[in-house]
């Protein structure tokens, strides 16, 4: 793999002793061309957990308000109207704010259900590759909703455990595949990285790969 020249290149720093001790240093550096993000101080396309959570808060969730308000016009779109007792879809950031001010009751998303999550977890454990997740932000949404609205979500403790199990399995797969990719010096990662969570990139302490990059 010859070092790609030019801007937008992203260093992947990886220390590894070569398998049969050849070479003096045992350090292999691989440079990966990144398709997006300007050349800059920080590796573009990576995600801090806080950023991932911020993006997750744009997802829509159903609430049942206890107040009434006409349609509100925000930059991102229109919301409402709000009528007491009638469910309405709002972004998560607004739902959490209203819940903290005791102005609504949150309804958990459909995938946040013990049986469905058990299925997903079992499927994830069976397969070698990543399975599709109900939402790209399932981890952040679970954390937010269970922190602020656990009294509206039945069996919250079990849901937390199931989601964490699924997450652990996926991260283990990620590490495994990245490790094997480097060991075998493959040109392509065996997994479809596009299916990964946005947050996955920051989990990989050693790697800093843009998770949108498919193929290298």
């Amino acid at each position, binding site marked *: 793999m010859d070092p790609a020249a030019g801007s937008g290149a992203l260093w992947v720093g990886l220390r590894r002793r070569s398998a049969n001790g050849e070479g003096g240093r045992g350090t292999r550096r691989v440079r990966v061309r990144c398709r997006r993000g300007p050349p800059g101080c920080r590796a573009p396309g990576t995600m801090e957990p806080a950023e991932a959570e911020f993006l997750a808060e744009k997802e829509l969730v159903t609430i049942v308000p206890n107040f009434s308000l006409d349609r509100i016009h925000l930059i991102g779109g229109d919301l409402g109207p709000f009528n007491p007792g009638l469910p309405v879809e709002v972004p998560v950031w607004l739902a959490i704010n209203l819940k903290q*001010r*005791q*102005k609504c009751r949150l309804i958990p998303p459909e995938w946040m259900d013990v049986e469905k999550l058990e299925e997903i977890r079992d499927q994830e454990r069976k397969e070698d590759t990543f399975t599709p997740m109900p939402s790209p932000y399932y981890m952040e949404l679970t954390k937010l909703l269970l922190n602020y609205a*656990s*009294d509206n979500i*039945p*069996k*919250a*403790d079990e849901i937390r455990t199931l989601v964490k199990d699924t997450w652990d399995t996926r991260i283990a797969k990620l590490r495994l595949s990245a490790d094997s990719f480097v060991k075998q010096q493959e040109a392509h990662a065996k997994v479809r990285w596009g299916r990964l969570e946005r947050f996955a990139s920051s989990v990989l302490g050693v790697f800093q790969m843009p998770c949108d990059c498919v193929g290298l």
Partner: protein
Amino acid sequence: MFLSDCRREFYEVIVSQRVLLLVASDVDALCACKILQALFQCDHVQYTLVPVSGWQELETAFLEHKDQFKYFVLINCGANVDLLEILQPEEDTFFFVCDSHRPINVVNVYNETQIKLLVKQDDDLDVPAYDDIFRDEEDEEEDSGNESDGSEPSEKRRRFEEDVIERTMKRRQKREWEARRREILFDYEQYEYHGTSSAMVMFDLAWIMSKDLNDMLWWAIVGLTDQWVQDKITQMKYVTDIGTLQRHVSRHNHRNEDEENSLSIDCMRIAFEYDLRLALYQHWSLYESLCNTSYTSASLKLWSVQGQKRLQEFLADMGLPLKQVKQKFNSMDISLKENLREMIEESANKFGMKDLRVQTFSIHFGFKNKFLASDIVYATASLMENIEKEGPETDNFIKALDSLSRGNLDKLHQGLDLAKKQLRAIQQTVASCICTNLVISQGPFLYCSLMEGTPDVKLFSKPVSLCLLSKYLLKSFVCSTKNKRCKLLPLVMAAPMDVEQGTVIMVGIPPETESSDKKNFFGRAFEKAAESTNSRTLHNHFDMSIIELKTEDRSKFLDALISLLS
């Protein structure tokens, strides 16, 4: 004036305004403040919080802020004095007073415009009727200038005589009326006592607006328990208020926990408990708790060697091995903990402690955290009066306020540690006072004075700690003395407050009897004694029965008090 509709006349008025909250320094006020803050946060009300510990601070805060605020909310302060006279506010300033101090000053009751009282009407207030105390200044001389023109001299003289008779009659009536007024006011203001807890009043407000939460209910419970721990309300009132709160608790916490709807373990639950009266026993060892709770320590007379033996007998009677009892409660054997309450109650009955169990509530969240209401009261009170840290007083207040939120468990645990130290210090001081006969009868009352070199005496320079100490001391003294007359006397307690300035803090508490109505006459008595001897006293606290005075004036003040009360 009393507000009949708190929601419309109080909350909806301030919801669109900036408000200044003046909060007194006791746990009940803290809880009421927490509830009100939670309501304000829901509705984005702008407010400023100023903790005040006495009348001087109240006045200073008012003067500082009176140009910026028109609406003031006073919590647990201000009901028992003439606010308008002390603060001299402008015409368009409004005061909302939520105070448990009684009796409410008559000017506050009958002022129609500026002072609004958030008080439950079913508190027996016995406010004197308006006509008995206020009287329009009639024009006394209205008939003296009457010129009758052109009438006969004899008629004139007759009319003149009649006028004179009328005038003397009127003057006599006025004198009688004034004498009666003085008597009525004296009877009304003679005894100080406490009404419904402010935290409960605030919770009622939240409930009326359907914005009440489990958290607010817990704060109301802590406020009520504070009144009970400090012995401010009668047992009857406590039980009645517990009943009221029990209804709310069942409403909020009745979730049938079945397979379908189990609530997360992190959610807060409140439960009614008929639990032991031992202070902090679940966060301490059972042995320490038995030694440091005033009820058990006084009944078993633990300051004497006999008492220690009785304690051992008591434990043996229950079958609890000493080793188990002296370790942390959480580490006691489960088999012993299972029927602990019933076992202790049975044995306690044998040893003359009939009221070892009390109705209270406990809070439960997460796997580790279970607290009784009294635990929180002790922890918060000791955080508020923490002498260990040097810093502005408001720091302690804010820390204590924070510790009431569930997220600040570290502060709560710090408070629990401080409370343990405080309780130990109180018990040791009580034991030494009783053993060295420091409590002497002065005739109409008992008197005890702490010397400067006493260990932990700095702890007792704060009013709430000193009150707690005096109540425990009185209880223990009543159990220890054989003199029947002394058992019915009230207690005056003095402790050095500031050594440099040479001041002493003095507290008067009512006598300890089975059916005492907790009415305290020392407020007025202290005032009168101070006046008559020109002692340099400072009646700064919201409770009139706590004063500060100069050490030199102490003896003449006491003499005046004795002669006043005998």
